């Protein structure tokens, strides 16, 4: 089978021993280093099922690396990761992934419908070609993101927002339990952002877990109910009202943040954060 499966042969036992099968995502003692320089240091994370979680942190905090480690795209130096009590390599069909838009070549000779159908490949497995059923799934997903009439467009003709919606449709046809999205709201128009948020919230309301690397501190409280603040280590994690505090943000972002008190007279949990100097 896959090399990843061979390397991860001990993970099952660990996942069971840790007794955290109730968590959608359970990470323990995770360290990832590039050339001896730690990008993530001794991370413990628990995200319960059925929440919409944001991962925030300054540039270089290791947000994307965290997702890549969960998906097996980078190899951790230490630690283990469980998705619903199983190592990720054993739960390929339960995980959907939306990479950053810049991760792919949008001049690739293919159509919108084709890209969305790629989301069904995990269910098809090796050798089987997508057929009518996959096409129907893909069309339904394209309809829900408002892109049905563009299904036969070549992908290079799409705007940034349309590209993001295609990626979202592709994740939806994966029909997973846990969705990982890397900055899905970066550089998209307001309509797309609304569509993305609405669809992600619908997924959450259907009992799925949605985990989003997010860059816009101002919308955290509006969109998400769970929050992980990261800066190489975990600064704070938990429900948004408890974790989204001025103190936590300052600990993560240091001087790179401006806190504007919203004037409720309460403590800094009512603060609106704006990341400065980006």
């Amino acid at each position: 089978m896959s090399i990843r499966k061979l390397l991860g042969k001990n993970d099952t036992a660990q996942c069971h021993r840790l007794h955290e099968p109730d968590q959608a995502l359970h990470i323990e003692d995770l360290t990832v280093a590039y050339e001896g320089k730690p990008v993530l240091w001794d991370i413990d994370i628990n995200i319960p099922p059925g929440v919409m979680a944001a991962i925030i942190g300054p540039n270089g905090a290791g947000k994307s690396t965290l997702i890549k480690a969960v998906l097996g795209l980078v190899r951790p130096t230490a630690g283990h990761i469980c998705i619903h009590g199983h190592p990720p390599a054993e739960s390929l069909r339960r995980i959907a992934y939306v990479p950053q838009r810049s991760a792919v070549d949008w001049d690739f000779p293919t159509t919108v419908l084709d890209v969305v159908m790629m989301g069904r490949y995990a269910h098809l497995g090796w050798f089987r070609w997508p057929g009518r059923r996959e096409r129907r799934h893909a069309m339904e997903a394209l309809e829900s993101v408002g892109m049905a009439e563009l299904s036969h467009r070549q992908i290079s003709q799409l705007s940034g927002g349309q590209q993001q919606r295609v990626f979202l449709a592709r994740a939806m046809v994966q029909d997973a339990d846990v969705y990982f999205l890397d900055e899905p709201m970066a550089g998209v128009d307001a309509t797309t952002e609304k569509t993305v948020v609405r669809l992600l919230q619908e997924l959450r309301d259907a009992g799925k877990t949605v985990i989003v690397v997010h860059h816009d501190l101002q919308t955290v409280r509006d969109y998400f109910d769970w929050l992980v603040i990261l800066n190489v280590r975990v600064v704070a994690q938990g429900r948004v009202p408890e974790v989204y505090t001025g103190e936590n943000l300052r600990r993560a972002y240091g001087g790179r943040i401006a806190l504007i008190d919203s004037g409720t007279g309460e403590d800094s949990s009512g603060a609106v954060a704006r990341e400065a100097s980006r």
Partner: protein
Amino acid sequence: MIASFFLQPVAMILLTGALVAAAGALVGTFLVLQRNSMLSDAISHSIVFGIVVVWLLTHAQSGPVQILGAALTGVLTVFLTELVAGTRRVKRDAAIGLVFPALFAAGVLLLNLYARDVHIDTHTVLLGEIGFVWLDTMMLGSLELPQAVVWMSVVTLANLIYVLMFYKELKLATFDPQLAAALGFAPTALFYVLLALTSTTAVAAFDAVGAVLFIAFVIVPPATAYLLTDRLSLMLVYSVLIGVASSLSGYPVAVMFDVSVGGTMAAMTGVFFLLAFLLGPRHGLLGREWQRRRGE
């Protein structure tokens, strides 16, 4: 009847040229889309090292051992390149440039030291001699066939089977390697097999067109097809057709001007590229102009 067809020099030259073009286009399409075109350059040079080493060990100049040796050398080239690039002291393109000349030089050195009287000489290594492919024959059952035709048919078939069997997986791994890895489709393994096939194609095509002209057949027809279509499946088909057309049209031109046959075939790929560049419906200069005017 069939037997006499395989002994006709012109038919064999055209057939060999067409097979080189088809086999090259099949792997080349994915290399071009992965922005790894120049790996074909690296591979086609470093297999000289493999060819000489295999010759020194077994005295086989072609055939299955040579093809296996080439596949290993190609994979070795890419592996060494990734190793050098992995140190992050040099960029990947420079790593390619460090590895393949070293292997190529080692091959030429070994050739000069230990294999002076073999027919592999530096000129053949670079340009090949497709005009003489019909001289080197072998028996397949009762049929006498040119060696180049036999081995080129084998590798063309291997490439075709690989691309058809793993079409969906190759497409995903080329477009979005991260998702491919996340879904368990082993993009790295697919990539190495593709490069191993590129190497076997290069060694089989070696006698016919040499290391340098081979690159033209791997890169130019896919680059041309890319200008003509927005579908991967059509890009594969067009690449093969353009490559074959280049080979077939190259021969009479070469005869007319009494110049290198392989060279003219490769030059024809350039002519087709230029035509697509100027006249292509969507990406061509004229097509763009037309679309612009219509849009006004």
